[in-house]
């Protein structure tokens, strides 16, 4: 098992309480940073670590922090994106529920580095029970002097709030999240300007994923270089993978980036192979929005090299034969799975969650769902398959936010790799599964 950075103490009973967390060395990174580091030094440690955004896009965190506009006199904000709602992804909830203090510790470090005096954790509305846990943890942190005025005598003050959303997937998009946090309708903003310049309440803001923030304490304690020694290529550190589907051991695994996909699926340490000795048919490697890959392409790249769990290796071959690491929602399907039905489920989700601002996504997602429903229920025609490809092509890249892309990629990739299955649905005029 690789070095555990995020899940090291996750099985310790009572970890969510301050006493237990503190006894295990919690908040030491805050003490270290406030005493020994300037905010810019914290940023440079994070830049050195090579940590990339764990929400899905994989943008280097240190670089994102570097974009924040420090010249204005406006306050700056640090926001945690806890609106985890991508189908197949359930890693952030695990941290928030079992180890909230690690998240708070990371929030303090990030806020200190960016010079934020007020920070927010925006949590998905459905996770209200996690909100209660985090609020309790925040209260404990205030009581013990890690939040509030003049933290541990350093002169640095920080207020941290946890705000629930109202249950919209789109609020996981960072500008929609900021709109929602401001109390408005959660519609994504048109970029530019980017949040680093005009963010929450019009002030410079950085939004990071829970997992990204939870990795910060370790980076400060052990140094950015130690973190960058883990992993492979430009994929540094460890990543939480929430594995689900037809595997023997579904669950959340912390892997060192660069682990071979084959080992991840078949080794007993991780997923433990396909259930009931079935064979692997397809994998959605990074949450429902990334392209689906058939078994032969997920285990090996098109060139025959073994596929690794890293940003670069998974995207090797572009969208023709590759996919993305995304948010780490690893969905495994065996040969009993109907790809069309699976795709219909995804399409239904994106149709339901489209915010309705821009026309390609608003109208196109619903259209795709209806066509897929037609094919799955045995009323499709061969023309429908090409129509789906055409629609997805015109949604992709034409929308305000990435939800349009997220809705289009699964459709395009499923037809690219499993066209026979769609044709079979049409020929038989029913679902063959």
């Amino acid at each position, binding site marked *: 098992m690789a070095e555990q950075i995020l899940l090291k103490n996750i099985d310790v009973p009572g970890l969510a309480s301050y006493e237990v967390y503190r006894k295990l060395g919690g908040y030491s990174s805050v003490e270290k940073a406030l005493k020994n580091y300037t905010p810019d030094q914290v940023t440079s440690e994070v830049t050195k670590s090579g940590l990339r955004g764990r929400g899905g896009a994989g943008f280097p965190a240190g670089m994102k922090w570097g974009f924040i506009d420090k010249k204005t006199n406006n306050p700056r904000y640090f926001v945690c994106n806890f609106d985890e709602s991508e189908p197949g992804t359930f890693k952030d909830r695990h941290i928030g529920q079992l180890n909230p203090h690690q998240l708070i510790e990371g929030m303090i470090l990030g806020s200190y580095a960016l010079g934020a005096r007020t920070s927010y954790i925006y949590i998905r509305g459905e996770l209200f029970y996690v909100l209660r846990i985090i609020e309790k943890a925040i209260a404990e942190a205030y009581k013990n002097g890690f939040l509030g005025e003049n933290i541990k005598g350093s002169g640095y003050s920080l207020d941290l709030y946890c705000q629930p959303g109202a249950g919209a997937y789109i609020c996981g998009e960072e500008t929609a999240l900021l709109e929602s946090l401001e109390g408005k309708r959660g519609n994504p903003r048109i970029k530019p300007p980017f949040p680093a310049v005009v963010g929450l309440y019009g002030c410079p803001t950085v939004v990071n994923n829970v997992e990204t923030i939870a990795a910060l304490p370790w980076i400060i304690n052990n140094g950015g270089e130690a973190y960058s020694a883990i992993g492979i290529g430009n994929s540094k550190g460890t990543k939480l993978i929430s594995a689900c589907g037809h595997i023997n051991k579904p669950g959340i695994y912390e892997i060192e980036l660069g682990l071979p996909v084959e080992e991840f699926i078949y080794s007993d340490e991780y997923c433990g192979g396909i259930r009931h000795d079935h064979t692997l048919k397809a994998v959605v490697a990074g949450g429902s929005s990334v392209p689906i890959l058939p078994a032969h392409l997920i285990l090996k790249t098109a060139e025959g090299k073994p596929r690794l769990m890293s940003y670069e290796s998974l995207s090797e071959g572009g969208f023709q034969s590759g996919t993305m690491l995304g948010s780490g929602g690893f969905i495994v399907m065996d040969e009993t799975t109907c790809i069309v039905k699976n795709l219909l489920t995804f399409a239904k989700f994106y149709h339901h969650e*489209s915010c309705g601002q821009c026309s390609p996504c608003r109208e*196109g997602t619903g259209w795709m769902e209806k066509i897929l429903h037609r094919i799955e229920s045995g009323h499709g025609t061969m023309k429908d398959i090409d129509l789906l490809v055409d629609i997805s092509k015109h949604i992709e*890249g*034409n929308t305000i936010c990435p939800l349009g892309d997220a809705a289009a990629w699964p459709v395009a990739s499923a037809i690219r790799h499993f066209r026979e299955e769609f044709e079979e649905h049409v020929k038989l005029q029913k679902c063959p599964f």
Partner: protein
Amino acid sequence: MPLLKVTIDNIEVEVEAGTTIMNAARKIGGSVVPPAMCYYSKLEGSGGYCRTCLVKVSQGSFKDNRPMPKLVASCRTPVQDGMVVQNRTSPEVMDNRRAITEFLLINHPLDCPVCDQAGECHLQDLSYEHGLEETRTEEDRRTFDPIDIGDLIKLHMNRCILCYRCVKVADQITDNRVHGVLGRGDHSEISTLIQKAVDNDFSGNMIDVCPVGALTDKTFRFKSRVWFTRPFDAHRECAKCCGKTVLWMKGEEILRVTGRKDQYGELEEFICNDCRFHHKETTDWIVEGPRKIERHSVISQNHYEKLDIPENGEESE
């Protein structure tokens, strides 16, 4: 401030910093201008929603001559010095515009024969120019019942393309915002939380900014097709607004009063409800003369108000 040089469809133009591609194109004019279904220069923060004005930037600027990776919304993208933009000259842009037109029409009822907006509808223009000849959808369309959102405005949500212009009017022109978007995705709707809540002096402008027949004037509904009326510029003394309007007349009767729209269908100035709804006698107005209507518009039929007669006095064939 030095002017920025930008090339759109091989035509060069110089504009001030901060100008959007759309406004630079409007400075050139003609067919270079991308169609706009949601952008409205008089409303702050409008644009970016409909995606019909997407253009290709084949060179970012003099400094960074890489092309932009995606098509960009010309109404929301500021120009850079040395930017090269392709609108009609790019097959990709035109193909996408066809697709966007199709998307906008998926849930549109196509009820032009009974719609009051027919003849001055931007969606009609857009689909004539960019739409497919046949429909590729066979699915049911979303439907809503028409409702009154105020005493004087009727909302046909079926026809709405969610351009958000009326929401911006309600936000920016009127005092109390009572009107917005409810719901999400393709079932979202323009509405008021409390029925018939739209009641203020400038609410009528929502009708004028609506690019389709979703918001119509209840004092004019079903009175006449617009091309059977004749528009006249007129004005009156008004304490609330500029008082400059267009009267849409049939014989001696004023059927409708609207604001004056420019060549892009945008109001030159917003007018008050008093002028719009409550002054329908010719004695209320000082008529300036016939309104110039673009030749391509159906409204211009049977209007022979002014012939361009050459100086020698004889009309050339």
